């Protein structure tokens, strides 16, 4: 039973446009959410996070939105660049727990020049 779901395995966007990657979760105990980016043959790298006390966190071109009532979060990248092409993983944890992150299956983003 997947607790973190990324329902779109892939997404293709034109350079300069907005990329929106979606993530849904089922465990209401999750209160800390992260996005990781992964290039081929490399480990995932941390991108941005948000705690449940906020509904938005912004870092440069990257913004994460959290809708707790819908158990949904999204990552917006604007403007998208070809170097953003990678697999993006959504992850969640419950801070009161041991803290191991539960990851989604990832969405492969392709930004076309």
């Amino acid at each position, binding site marked *: 039973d997947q607790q973190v779901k990324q329902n779109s395995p892939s997404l293709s966007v034109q350079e300069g446009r907005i990329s929106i990657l979606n993530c849904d979760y089922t465990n209401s105990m999750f209160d800390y959410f992260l996005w990781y980016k992964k290039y081929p*043959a490399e480990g995932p790298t*941390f991108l941005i996070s948000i*705690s449940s006390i906020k509904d938005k966190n912004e870092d440069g071109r990257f913004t994460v939105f959290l809708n707790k009532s819908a158990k949904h979060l999204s990552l917006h990248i604007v403007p998208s660049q070809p170097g953003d092409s990678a697999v993006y993983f959504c992850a969640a944890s419950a*801070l009161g727990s041991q803290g191991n*992150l539960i990851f989604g299956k*990832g969405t492969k983003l392709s930004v076309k020049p």
Partner: protein
Amino acid sequence: GAGVSQSPSNKVTEKGKDVELRCDPISGHTALYWYRQSLGQGLEFLIYFQGNSAPDKSGLPSDRFSAERTGGSVSTLTIQRTQQEDSAVYLCASSLNRNASPLHFGNGTRLTVT
């Protein structure tokens, strides 16, 4: 500034053999995690070490899998009597502590069981 280091980067082994995968975390990071990524899947949690506490082994898929962390630093993941379904990329990560600290991942060990 060394990141998380894993070795070997690639390992091909015959079914039934034992393998050891090594992880050197970032110096000063007290938390260490092992994940694996099978083809087309997300990252599957395996085991977690925090300081001197007993590890959280809840993600280990079978008793053929074990891990240890010596001296609070280097960790070794051991898979005994490997099976073809063990083929995956095994990722190690470390963080400053268990709460609200992003994980820093190594580049992983690609294990192929033939």
